[in-house]
């Protein structure tokens, strides 16, 4: 048995194919092909959730993605759990667990329901008024309380074990929606030879043909025609048909995002399958066949379980074989709801009455209703409903007053007409236009290569829809150069053309009423809230939306926007188009983060870059730090050592013996060509034409505004070849900067740039024993001080592999940087280590590198400079050529503010108490007793404990710093004020003799 309300002979599901799931722990029998909504209804369950703010009992309102009420939590196991799933779109599978949300302790008895009684305190905008004071309470008291009380589902806490896929696709014509219109358009385009992608969010194609049994196309039942057409399309090589796939976003240049739900409907999905697949489609043309969504009627207590859209009841009956009630009322402003009554009546359900608020419904439906013996109350309205957890009666009164009559019902179907789904059209930046005759917003001005067809285009009538869609499909195919096929023709018939429709509040919910007539179910916004917003001064629809939260729930106002607009229009006494629609934004329906991020998580979120020596460093206990994407050895703690201990030991060892440092992450650019020196002259402040082959120079690169952009040592290997190094983080942007100038400003120069960062492994060997360590491993290079002085570069062999050996130092010690091809990096490192370790050397990491360079006052671009520092500010004037007539930044450096007295300049700071280490970023003042706000002179840029100096050292940017040498300044901290003396920046070996050792 798959539910007491399943009617034999109705619907398209197979009675023998059953599936069982649980709802709040209770077993529910369903049929394969059921949605959670249809299965619950088949079992007489209407109460499915509690509302967001008032915790009112809510049921199933719709049979589609517009569902605002029936949000459920669906799980396979603890990790595979998804909250806020719309019950009408979730297909059942055997063993699934469904739980209701936002209720405690149970769905039927929910403590939070007290909010409903207290609703006068929760009027629109109550967030902004009630929880204002004290300010501190917001974060600790109000917000947690609101979040707990007013809520949707609970996010899963376990890591998602499923995987997701991503695919790029290209086509001539993308058709969004596979109802009559979409299928017709796809067929015409495909027959013409176009590459077509047809998508529909439902498990099967057909759209409205799911419920409209009266439709015949080419003599065939509409739904069967749809399936046959889809089968025909699927068999064509040029067509991809995607069901369970939502076109959720329409972006620039016909780029459309689709999400395909691959396994969410399967009891035992193949582990190889992704749960969802994101399709990023670039379509030459797009046909929008997104249909329309039925609106609810706005009247008092229109939200009780059992009250639903008329078309939804038709879908449940005609597709799923489920009667939504035994005694069903209808409240409508549109002919379309009559057909729901007809279908139910013919299936044996009692129709209590059709209440039509129009005096004159369409003649055809009225005649048919009379013929079927259904009572029709024209010019009447439902003004209230009764029923605790499900509607039990409706109060019906003649429009304009009069006594109310109570009619017992167990379900109420409603329709206020149809809203064209212009979401994707609007996302494409098309402009909608208001059609006053039909009271609808329709596609107006197109911004991209797309066309809307069928009811989303306001096209009424089956044959008109078919013809429009066939024409659009063919047109789009021809426009993309397809010349195949002949004309496709289709003939459609249906029972009734529909008239009617209304927007805004109905009888009994008008101005001056205080009833709860819901406009937005998901956010609990009533008609009176919108009026309140207008009274409180919100006159723009965007303000009204935010004040009331109308249309701001996850359903994005698919049902509520037009009603809200109409009510605002009435209160403001301005026409609807003058008020305007709020903006439609992607996604059309919620998209999981899993689908969007696909494989980009965990290790694949952001690739880690590792140097060739990484494995050795790991094996020798290095602790790593992230520098950009690089993993760099930070320090090498020995057993029992803290970071501080390790760094102190490494610092001492380098100055007393030697140290090995992995400098492979430095950016490296090979600059080659007859004009290479001239090009570098323009890119750096220094002069390069004077640099002799075999020598190196420290270079500074500026931006055009005169501020330091990057620095590094450049070696000249030959007249026409330079080995340029950049900062670790700066390599890509320096390369881009150079390419930019070379390609666009100096294209006459014959220069080629090649990034070689990953080609070279770089091993810095620094310290008094550096030469002793390296000498036996070198071939073909005279290592003597005279032949190979500080700031030189030689090519030769190192451990038998080609090397570019630099004599340079970022520590102040005599030092070398051994460049070898990256593949040999670890082997060469190990060979050097084998010699270095017995000589008392150590491996050191980036922290020690930082301390040692600070002891020498060498700056780190990006730490001691911040994009507002010139070379002069950094005491690097010596590196700025005075002879050159041009380089990037030459003019910027002369700007009035850059040559002004009193600029912040880099200086050293020595704390009066040598044991105090300053905090980097701390502010510096002249007078510690100055009342706040104090005048801040600058800040600490680098600060370390220097084991070699036996005290703390620091660098700082200080206003007029060079003129303050010897002055005492102060660093105010929360708990104390630290006195410091301004000094130069060289703390070790001021004469620099050790470099040449």
């Amino acid at each position, binding site marked *: 048995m798959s539910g007491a309300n399943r009617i034999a002979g109705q619907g398209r599901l197979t009675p023998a194919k059953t599936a069982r799931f649980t709802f709040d722990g209770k077993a529910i029998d369903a049929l394969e092909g059921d949605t959670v909504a249809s299965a619950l209804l088949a079992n007489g369950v209407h109460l499915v959730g509690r509302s967001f703010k008032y915790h009112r009992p809510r049921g199933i309102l719709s049979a589609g993605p517009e569902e605002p009420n029936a949000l459920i939590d669906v799980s396979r196991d603890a990790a595979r759990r998804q909250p806020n799933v719309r019950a009408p779109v979730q297909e059942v599978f055997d063993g699934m667990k469904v739980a209701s949300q936002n209720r405690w302790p149970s769905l039927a008895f929910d403590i939070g329901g007290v909010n409903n009684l207290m609703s006068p305190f929760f009027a629109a905008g109550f967030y902004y008024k009630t929880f204002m004071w004290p300010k501190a309470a917001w974060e600790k008291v109000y917000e947690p309380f609101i979040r707990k009380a007013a809520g949707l589902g609970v996010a899963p806490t376990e890591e998602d074990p499923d995987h997701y896929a991503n695919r790029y696709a290209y086509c001539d014509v993308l058709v969004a929606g596979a109802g009559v219109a979409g299928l017709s358009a796809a067929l015409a385009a495909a027959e013409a030879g176009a590459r077509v992608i047809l998508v529909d969010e439902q498990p099967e194609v057909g759209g409205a043909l799911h419920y409209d049994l009266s439709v015949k196309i080419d003599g065939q039942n509409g739904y069967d025609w749809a399936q046959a057409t889809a089968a025909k399309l699927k068999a064509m090589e040029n067509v991809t048909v995607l069901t369970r796939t939502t076109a959720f976003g329409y972006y620039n*240049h*016909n780029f459309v995002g689709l999400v395909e739900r691959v396994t969410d409907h399967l009891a035992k999905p193949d582990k190889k399958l992704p749960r969802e697949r994101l399709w*990023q489609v670039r379509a030459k043309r797009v046909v929008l066949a997104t249909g329309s969504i039925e609106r609810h009627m706005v009247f008092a207590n229109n939200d009780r379980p059992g009250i639903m859209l008329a078309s939804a009841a038709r879908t449940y009956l005609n597709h799923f074989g489920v009667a939504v009630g035994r005694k069903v009322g209808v409240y409508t402003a549109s002919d379309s709801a009559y057909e729901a009554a007809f279908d139910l009546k013919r299936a044996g359900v009692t129709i209590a009455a059709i209440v039509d608020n129009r005096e004159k419904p369409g003649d055809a439906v009225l005649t048919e209703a009379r013929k079927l013996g259904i009572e029709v109350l024209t010019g009447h309205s439902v003004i209230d409903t009764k029923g605790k957890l499900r509607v039990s009666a409706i109060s019906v009164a003649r429009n304009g007053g009069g006594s109310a009559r109570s009619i017992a019902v167990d379900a109420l179907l409603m329709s206020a007409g149809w809203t064209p789904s212009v979401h994707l059209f609007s996302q494409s930046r098309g402009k909608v236009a208001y059609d006053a005759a039909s009271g609808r917003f329709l596609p107006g001005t197109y911004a991209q290569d797309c066309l809307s067809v069928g009811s989303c285009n306001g096209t009424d009538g089956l044959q008109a829809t078919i013809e429009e869609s066939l024409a659009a499909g063919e047109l789009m195919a021809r426009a993309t150069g397809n010349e195949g096929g002949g004309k496709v023709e289709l003939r459609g018939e249906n029972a009734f053309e529909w008239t009617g429709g209304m927007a805004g509040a109905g009888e009994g919910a008008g101005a001056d009423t205080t009833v709860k007539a819901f406009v937005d179910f998901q956010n609990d916004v009533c008609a009176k809230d919108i009026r309140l917003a207008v009274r409180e001064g919100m006159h723009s629809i965007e303000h009204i939306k935010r004040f009331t939260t109308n249309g701001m729930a996850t359903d994005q106002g698919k049902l509520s926007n037009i009603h809200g607009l109409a009510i605002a229009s009435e209160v403001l006494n301005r026409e609807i188009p003058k008020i305007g629609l709020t903006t439609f934004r992607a996604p059309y329906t919620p998209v999981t983060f899993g689908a969007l991020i696909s494989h980009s998580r965990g290790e694949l979120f952001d690739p880690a870059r590792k140097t060739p020596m990484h494995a050795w460093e790991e094996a020798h206990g290095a602790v790593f730090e992230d520098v950009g994407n690089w993993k760099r050895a930070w320090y090498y703690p020995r057993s029992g050592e803290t970071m501080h201990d390790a760094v102190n030991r490494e610092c001492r060892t380098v100055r007393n013996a030697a140290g090995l440092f992995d400098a492979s992450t430095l950016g490296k650019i090979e600059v080659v060509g007859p004009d290479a020196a001239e090009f570098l002259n323009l890119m750096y402040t220094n002069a390069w034409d004077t640099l002799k082959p075999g020598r190196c120079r420290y270079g500074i690169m500026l931006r055009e505004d005169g501020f330091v952009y990057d620095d590094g040592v450049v070696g000249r290997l030959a007249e026409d070849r330079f080995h340029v190094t950049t900062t670790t983080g700066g390599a890509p942007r320096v390369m*881009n900067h150079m390419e930019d100038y070379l390609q666009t*400003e100096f294209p006459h120069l014959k220069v080629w740039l090649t990034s070689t960062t990953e080609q070279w492994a770089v091993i810095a060997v620094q310290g008094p024993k550096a030469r002793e360590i390296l000498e036996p491993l070198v071939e073909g290079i005279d290592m003597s001080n005279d032949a190979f002085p500080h700031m030189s570069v030689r090519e030769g062999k190192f451990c038998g592999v080609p090397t570019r050996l630099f004599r340079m130092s970022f520590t102040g010690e005599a030092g070398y940087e051994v460049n070898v091809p990256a593949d040999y990096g670890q082997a060469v490192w190990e060979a050097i280590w084998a010699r270095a370790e017995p000589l008392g050397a150590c491996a050191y990491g980036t922290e020690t590198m930082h301390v040692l360079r600070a002891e020498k006052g060498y700056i780190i671009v990006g730490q001691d400079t911040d994009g507002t520092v010139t070379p002069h500010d950094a005491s690097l004037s010596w590196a700025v050529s005075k002879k050159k007539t041009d380089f990037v930044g030459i*003019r*910027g450096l002369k*700007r009035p503010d850059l040559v002004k007295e009193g600029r912040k300049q880099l200086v050293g700071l020595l704390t009066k108490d040598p044991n105090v280490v300053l905090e980097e970023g701390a502010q510096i003042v002249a007078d510690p007793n100055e009342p706040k706000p104090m005048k801040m002179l600058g800040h600490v840029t680098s600060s370390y404990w220097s084991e070699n100096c036996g005290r703390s050292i620091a660098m700082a940017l200080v206003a007029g710093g060079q003129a303050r040498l010897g002055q005492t300044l102060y660093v105010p901290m929360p708990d104390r004020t630290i006195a410091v003396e301004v000094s130069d920046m060289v703390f070790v070996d001021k004469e620099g003799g050790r470099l040449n050792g």
Partner: protein
Amino acid sequence: MLLIYCPYCEEERSELEFRHGGDAHIARPTNMADITDEEFQEFFFLRDNPKGLIFERWRHIHGCGRFFNAARDTVSDKFYMSYKAGQPKPDVPGVTSAAATNENTGGNAK
């Protein structure tokens, strides 16, 4: 995501392959060191923010690596054309440049 025509590769590729490079047709003065503060200001700091037609630089950074120029509508994001670096600013048929009206504001900076 934009679809951008690279005039060097001679095909449309996804925006993912490109990097935007700011306004086009702002030539670096050849007498850079000698320009006045006002000229430098015009060259380096001042930019139009037109609603409509804009000429801008792009680099096909994950493709051929070349810089090129494009004419785009800032409202619709429609590209009118792309063309190689160094080519003169083209006329865009049927579209008047908002920037054209204040073309002659800087010395030799433009």
